[in-house]
C-alpha cells in the first residue's frame, strides 16, 4: 500500500516535470560526497543546456527502481543512476534495456558490469587506484626517512562496503606485488566504520600495546584524522609517523597543512557527475561509449595541496 502510494506520487512528479532530457536517480541526497557529485551533474547540465531531472531515492532500492520506470514511462533520452545497492542493478538494467533507453551507472559499480548491454555504461573512479596510490606514497615517504623495513597499522572502513574492502586489498597488493619501496609488515588491521571517534579509540588501543610502528594507513580521511588525534594525545612526534587517508576532505587538508597528515587521495566527484552526463548524452545520440569509464583518482601531498583546497 505504502509502496504503491509512493510510486503513484513519484509517477505524478515524473510525468508532469519531464518531457525529454536526462533523468537522474541519486541514491541519497544528504550525503556529502554524493552532493558534490550531484552538483557536478547539475552545473555541467546548466553549462551545456542539457535538461536534467534529479530524483532522490532516499537509500531505498524499490523507490529507485520505481523512479527509473517512471523516467522510462515519461520518455527520457537517457537515465543516470547512482545505485542504492550495487547488487540490485540487474532489474534496472533489464527495465531500461527492454525500453531501449540508454542507462549510465555512476560512482558505485553495478554487480552486472561485465554483462551490461551496449547502450549502458559505468562511470566512476577505480578503487584499485585509491588504495594503491595511497600505499605507494606511504612507502615512498618511509624510504625517504631512511627506513628499509617498516611496520604499519591499517584502519579499515565499514566491512560491508566495497570501497573499504578494495582499498584494504590494495594495500596488500602493493606489499605483495613488491611495489612498496620498503619492506612493510602490517601489525594489525581493524575497522573504524569510517568514523573518527572509533578510529581515535582504536589507535589509542594500539598505542597501549607498545608495539613500535612507522605508519598508519587508513581507508578514509576521517579515520586517519582520528588516528592523528590519538597519536597527538599520546605525545607521539607526528614527524616520525607516516599517516595516510583517502578522500581529501577539508578537515584532512587542514591536517595536512598542519604537517600531521602525510598522504590523501582525491576522488573527483564533480568529474564523475559530468562524465556520467556526457556518457548519457553520447549514448542517447547512438554513439559508442566504453563500458567502464574511469575518472582517475589523484594523489594529494603537501607539495600539490594548493590545487585541492577549493575542490571538496
Amino acid at each position, binding site marked *: 500500500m505504502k509502496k504503491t502510494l509512493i510510486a503513484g506520487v513519484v509517477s505524478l512528479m515524473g510525468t508532469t516535470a519531464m518531457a525529454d532530457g536526462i533523468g537522474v536517480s541519486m541514491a541519497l*541526497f*544528504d*550525503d*556529502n560526497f554524493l*552532493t558534490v557529485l550531484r552538483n557536478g551533474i547539475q552545473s555541467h547540465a546548466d553549462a551545456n543546456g542539457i535538461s536534467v531531472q534529479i530524483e532522490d531515492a532516499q537509500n531505498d532500492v524499490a523507490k529507485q527502481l520505481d523512479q527509473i520506470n517512471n523516467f522510462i514511462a515519461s520518455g527520457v533520452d537517457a537515465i543516470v543512476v547512482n545505485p542504492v545497492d550495487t547488487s540490485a542493478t540487474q532489474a534496472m538494467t533489464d527495465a531500461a534495456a527492454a525500453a531501449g533507453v540508454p542507462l549510465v551507472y555512476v560512482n558505485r559499480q553495478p554487480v552486472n558490469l561485465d554483462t551490461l548491454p551496449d547502450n549502458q555504461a559505468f562511470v566512476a573512479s577505480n578503487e584499485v587506484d585509491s588504495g594503491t596510490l595511497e600505499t605507494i606514497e606511504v612507502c615512498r615517504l618511509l624510504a625517504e626517512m631512511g627506513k628499509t623495513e617498516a611496520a604499519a597499522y591499517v584502519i*579499515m572502513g565499514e*566491512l560491508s562496503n566495497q570501497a573499504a574492502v578494495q582499498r584494504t586489498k590494495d594495500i596488500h597488493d602493493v606489499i605483495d606485488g613488491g611495489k612498496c619501496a620498503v619492506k612493510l609488515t602490517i601489525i*594489525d*588491521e*581493524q*575497522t573504524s566504520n569510517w*568514523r*573518527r*571517534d572509533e578510529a*581515535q*579509540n*582504536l589507535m*589509542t*588501543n*594500539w*598505542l*597501549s*600495546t*607498545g608495539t613500535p610502528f612507522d605508519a598508519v594507513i587508513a581507508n578514509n580521511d576521517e579515520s586517519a*584524522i*582520528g588516528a592523528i*588525534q590519538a597519536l597527538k*594525545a*599520546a605525545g607521539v612526534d607526528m614527524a616520525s609517523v607516516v599517516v595516510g587517508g583517502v578522500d581529501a*576532505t*577539508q*578537515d584532512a587538508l*587542514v591536517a595536512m*597543512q*598542519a604537517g600531521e597528515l602525510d598522504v590523501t587521495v582525491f576522488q573527483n566527484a564533480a568529474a564523475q557527475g559530468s562524465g556520467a552526463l556526457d556518457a548519457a548524452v553520447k549514448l542517447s545520440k547512438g554513439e559508442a561509449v566504453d563500458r567502464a569509464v574511469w575518472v582517475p583518482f589523484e594523489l594529494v601531498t603537501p607539495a600539490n595541496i594548493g590545487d585541492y*583546497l577549493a575542490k571538496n
Partner: protein
Amino acid sequence: MPVAQATHGLGGLKDDPTKKSKPQELNVLIALIVIVAAFELVGRVFLGDSFLFNTRDNVDAIFNTARLQIIILQVSIVGIIALGVTQVIITGGIDLSSGSVVGATAMVTMSFAQTALVNGQPNPKAIFGDWAMDLPVLAPVLVGLGCGLFAGLINGALVAYTRIPPFIATLGMMVTARGFSRWWSNGNPISFPTESYGAIGKGMMPVLIFVALAVLFHLVLTQTKYGRHCYAIGSNEQAARMSGINVDRHKVLVFVIAGGLAALAAIVLSSKNLTAQAGMGVMYELDAIAMAVIGGVSLQGGRGSILGTVLGALIFGVIISGFTFLKLDAYYQEMVKGAIIVGAVVLDQWRQRGRSRG
C-alpha cells in the same frame, strides 16, 4: 523471582534500593573480573603478552596504564548517556532517542563553537557568519544543553501526557532528531572549534566528567526523594500513583535529565573529535542500554543502579580493548561482542535464580 521482586516493591516507598541491588552489582563485578582474567590468560598463552600488566622494559610501571586508560576512556561518552538511560529504565521506560539526540546536539553545538581562522585561513566549514565565531565556550555548551533538555522534555511529555509507550515516543524522537542533524547543515560535517571548546574533551577529561556525573547520580538515586520515586514508579506505577507521587511530572523530569546527559555526551564527543557529523552517535542508544542491562538494570523497571551501569560500561571497554589486544579479526568482533552481552545477562539470571532457590 520477578514476582517476588514486584510484591516486594509494592507500595514500596520504604523499600531500600541500595540494600536490594548490592548482590546484583557483585555479580557484574565478578563477570568483569572473569572477562579480564580470560583476556589475560589467552594473552599469556597465545601471545606471550599481558593484558593488564606492563611488559615493556623501557616503562617503569606495574600495570599497562595506557591500556587501563583507554578501557575507560572509550566508554566514557556512551557511559554518560547510559547514566540517563539507567534512570529511564529504572522508572520503567526506555529511551531509544539518545544516539540521535547526540547527533543533533553535536551539530547545533559545534555551529556555535567554531573558530574564525584555521591555519590563518577562514574556517572552511563555517555554518554561521562572523557573529557566531570564537564565542566564549559557555555559549555552545548552553545551546547544546538546551537542545538535549528540549528533546528530553518532548520525550517526557509524550510519554507522560499522551500515554503512548516510551518505546514509540522515543523511536519518534530517534528518527526526527537524526533527520534534524542531517538537515542542519545538509549533511555536511562541522569542524574546527575554538581551542577552549576543544579542551572539554581533551585527554582524560571525558573520564573525569563521566566519573563525576556517575558519583552525582549515584547519590541522587540512592539519597534523594527523586531517586526513591524512580524505583517506586518502576516497581509498581499504580502503587506509586496511589501513594501520592506525581508520576507524570516525575517521568517528564527523568526524560529531561536523560536528554541533558545525552547533550553532555554530545558536547564531550564533538570536543574530543574536534568535529560534528550528522551520523554521530548512531547505535549509541543501544550500547548505552546494553551497558545498563549488563550492569543489572532490569528492563521491567524498578531494579538496577548507577554503580551497576558503570561496571557494565567497564565490561564493554574491556571487551573492545581485549579484542584489539588479541588482534581478533575485525569480522568476528561484533559476533563475539553480541554473544558476551547475552552471556553476561544469562549468567546473572542463573546466579539470581540459584540464590532465590537456595
